[in-house]
């Protein structure tokens, strides 16, 4: 069976569509629908997920992990009970737990899933989420964007509606703003924008800072180093934030939180009004105006074209968010029927459509490419010539996409062109991610600009890019497939030996590995260069580039050897 999973910063959920076409959210082993995204490792190595982990985190903060989703895309390691984990490993524990619960709940095997990610997640972050799902033995059939999932959930209840929607998804750790058009059961995404580092946790942090600062002012005690006290403060701040969405004021009570200078136990108690809290977070929420502006601009719409603003994510319960959106759009935003569940229900709908539990055209989603894909070209501006990225598939293009552009030879009697594929918005090749490069040779020799070369990019729903190039006059062509999944963080570098060029470079790689072992952290430069070099080998990049990287590696090795003498 196929399920939908919402892996969130602070909470995670799973849901599926049953044989009657109804969406069921899976309760976890404790019987709750919402599972906190917290992992605790017990001293016997047992992994605990969910509310139990949250409770244990108060007692043993050093052995638990919060907000692992925020660590995606960074090269961090988490140490628990002297064992190192990557963020994807931790995520796999949470996802595995949800799958377990789903198995127990419906009594059948779960073999594949649709997992949601923030729309503005980078490709590498998406790949990590995918890897986490695969680590649990799941086939990840689709990664979909959270705001899109939420609008699927809205759309399935409003199958006859036609309107422009703006989904404002402010969750625990990320903000996503998406503009889409809902048209009688088709969800057509127009544009998307977001901030990967803004969410409810930042509002908690504002309160935490307030509490620690006032303790410091009053008793001159710094409690930020006291892990156990900080976990209590964190939970109290979160509770206070939630209470202030309902009440005008809330009293934070933290008895026996720390010991004061005199050595006697002291507590913290303060009344926080909603207005005080709003002044703390107003800047952060107002800053999201930039994202709203960009997303409307990209969609070619104005604020008054939007018929409905849908708010998703727990943080949109904060009254200030609604008043902020009211100020921007002139009408009251509509909250998803259940802000916490909208995303997972949407994921379940997509899973249902893909697995055939729902009819193929019950609700159709057209998604967009979140980044621009471009190729490197020689550009003339005034008297200058420089290499720039020329966009072939602009961001917000509907997927699957196939685009072709025509280029020409740049110097006289050119017989070979190097074709590059980049991902990113910049014109500057250095600022974009190089996906692949290959050569097209056999161009009839002639004056510069006489021969035309067609370059086409084909990008499908699963992030596979096929780049092909063709000489227009002779029809000679070359094609290369870029699985952008490989370009992300999770490339198995040990596979470099399989490259046809590996033999030539075996010696130098062996040398770099030996040096890395001997010198440890002193050999960081060598290791970096070796990593780049191996990546090029694994991705089977053009020989020229591999050669250049090999030279860089040998320079780094020589520098290291010099420093010994």
């Amino acid at each position, binding site marked *: 069976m196929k399920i939908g999973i919402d892996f969130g910063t602070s909470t995670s959920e799973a849901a599926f569509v049953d044989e009657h076409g109804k969406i069921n959210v899976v309760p976890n082993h404790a019987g709750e629908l919402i599972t906190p995204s917290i992992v605790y490792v017990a001293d016997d190595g047992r992994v605990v997920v969910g509310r139990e982990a949250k409770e244990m985190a108060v007692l043993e903060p050093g052995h638990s992990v919060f907000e692992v989703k925020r660590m995606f895309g960074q090269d961090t390691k988490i140490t628990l009970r002297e064992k190192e984990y990557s963020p994807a490993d931790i995520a796999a524990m949470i996802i595995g737990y949800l799958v377990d619960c789903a198995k127990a709940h419906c009594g059948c095997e779960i073999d594949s899933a649709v997992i949601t990610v923030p729309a503005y997640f980078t490709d590498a972050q998406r790949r990590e989420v995918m890897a986490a799902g695969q680590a649990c033995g799941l086939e990840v059939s689709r990664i979909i964007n959270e705001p899109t999932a939420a609008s699927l959930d809205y759309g399935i209840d409003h199958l006859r509606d036609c309107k422009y929607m703006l989904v404002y998804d402010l969750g625990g750790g990320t903000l996503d703003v998406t503009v889409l058009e809902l048209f009688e059961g088709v969800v057509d995404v127009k544009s998307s924008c977001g901030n990967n580092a803004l969410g409810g946790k930042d509002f908690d942090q504002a309160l935490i800072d307030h509490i620690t600062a006032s303790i410091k002012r009053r008793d001159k005690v710094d409690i930020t180093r006291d892990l156990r006290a900080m976990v209590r403060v964190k939970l109290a701040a979160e509770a206070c934030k939630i209470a202030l969405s309902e009440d005008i004021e809330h009293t934070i009570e933290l008895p026996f939180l720390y010991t004061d200078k005199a050595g006697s136990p002291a507590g913290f108690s303060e009344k926080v009004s909603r207005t005080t809290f709003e002044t703390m977070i107003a800047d952060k929420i107002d800053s999201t105006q930039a994202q709203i502006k960009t997303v409307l601009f990209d969609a070619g719409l104005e604020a008054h074209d939007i018929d409905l603003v849908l708010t998703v994510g727990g943080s949109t319960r904060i009254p200030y968010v609604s008043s902020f959106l009211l100020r921007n759009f002139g009408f009251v935003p509509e909250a998803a029927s259940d802000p916490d569940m909208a995303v997972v229900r949407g994921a379940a709908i997509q899973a249902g*459509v893909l697995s055939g539990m729902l009819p193929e055209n019950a609700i159709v989603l057209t998604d967009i490419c979140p980044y621009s894909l471009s190729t490197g070209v020689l550009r003339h*501006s005034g008297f200058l010539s420089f290499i720039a990225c020329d966009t072939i598939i602009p961001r917000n293009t509907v997927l699957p996409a196939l685009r072709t552009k025509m280029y020409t030879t740049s110097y006289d009697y050119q017989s070979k062109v190097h074709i590059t594929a980049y991902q990113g918005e910049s014109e500057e090749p250095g600022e974009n991610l190089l996906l692949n490069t290959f050569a097209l040779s056999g161009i009839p020799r002639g004056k510069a600009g006489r021969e035309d070369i067609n370059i086409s990019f084909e990008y499908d729903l699963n992030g596979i890019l096929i780049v092909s190039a063709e000489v*227009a006059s002779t029809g000679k062509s070359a094609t290369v497939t870029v699985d952008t999944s490989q370009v992300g963080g999770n490339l198995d570098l040990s596979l470099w030996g399989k490259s046809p060029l590996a033999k030539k470079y075996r010696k130098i790689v062996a040398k770099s590995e030996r040096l890395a072992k001997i010198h440890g952290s002193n050999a960081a430069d060598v290791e970096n260069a070796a990593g780049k070099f191996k990546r090029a080998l694994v991705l089977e990049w053009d020989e020229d580039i591999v050669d250049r990287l090999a030279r860089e590696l040998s320079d780094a090795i020589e520098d290291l050897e010099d420093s010994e003498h």
Partner: protein
Amino acid sequence: MNYYELLGIGRDAGQGDIKRAYYAAVKQHSPDFDPEGFRAVRTAYETLQNPKKRAEYDTIFAVDNDIQGDMLRARNLVETNKLKQASELLTSLFNAHPGSREVALLHARTLLDLRKSKTADAIAKTMLAQDPGDIDALLLRAEVSVVMGHTAKAKERFLEAVSADPANRRVWNSYAHFALSERNRLIFDVFNQAWQQDPNMFSDKYSLYLAATAYILDFHGAADAVRYFNKFTEHYIADKHSTRPVYNLLLNVLFEILSNEVSPFVADLEKILPKLEESPFKQDDDKAKFNILRNSISIDRLHRDDEIHDVLTDLTECLLRDDVDQEAKLGMEVYIVSVLGTIRPSIRRLQAKYPELFKLNQAFYLDALNPKKEESLTNKYYSIHRKLLSAEKLSPNNTGDELAEPPTTFVREAPKIGRNDPCPCGSGMKYKKCCRNEA
């Protein structure tokens, strides 16, 4: 199957019908299950929904009925850059219907794209024989000359085309591109003539304006360039579909202008800056650029204001730098204190006219304006002056009254020797292990 059939709508369908038909078709061809079908539907929708593209597409149907389908295929082939196949198809079409202007034109254009200039020229000639005023044929002949590299002839033919239809934007755009590629004064004439005809002649060609600005800065100095720059910014502001690259180009040209001369641009710079700062393409890194631009404007205004003493301008310029040169600042303050009596009115004007620049060094200026503090200020700066003097004497480079030579760019006489290259001394060792260490 044409786009209308694909979406199941009539030729006269309105925007609303097209949209409804598209979404209905998407339901039949979901991107999840039928990606090929979906892409075809999407292409049809994107073409028909855009009035310009739709009109272009519709012209195909104006061709005689029996060749309609073939023309459609040919156009599609040209659009997807399958020129060879397109050319084959068009050759057979052209032979079958030698009288059709539509076929002949597309045929000639495709041939030109394939660099078969002579054949294209011959077709254009026969078209002109039928109708001597055929603007497309005239333009085609001009372009043939450009491709063949006959510059003088190309210019002649462009002029012919322009005089045949002076209001035709396509001709003017093509002419301007040609003039730009020639990199000479011609561009200036072309732009002047085009603007006399219609000020919006090149409305969609940002790069044209920018390139023109750059050239004219070289040929005619700033005043003419201002006109072209203004044209460009006007269109940039009016166009809500401009892109980040255009925005970048604009910023870069602002800097290019800065490195030449600011003065004639100040008013225009001030107009465009806030617009650019509101632009959604602005990135955090651009803040520094905007600061530099703003500061240059302020400095330039001071420079042109005769009522402000030069030393105040210099001091402001020094203060606006990211990294204030404290020594230079002190030196200028010492000078100001030494001529307090004469410079006070100038400081007062600075305070009244440019309060934000006055604030940069407010404490000092206020002291300078206060007659009661004159003595203490003089004493303080006198001792600073003494210190500066003694420091100057100590520094070995300074030989009294003469100014030290300004630093010049170091020019390498011989090519650079890499660290891993063999050493030039002939020892056979690497440079870094031999002479580099000694050096």
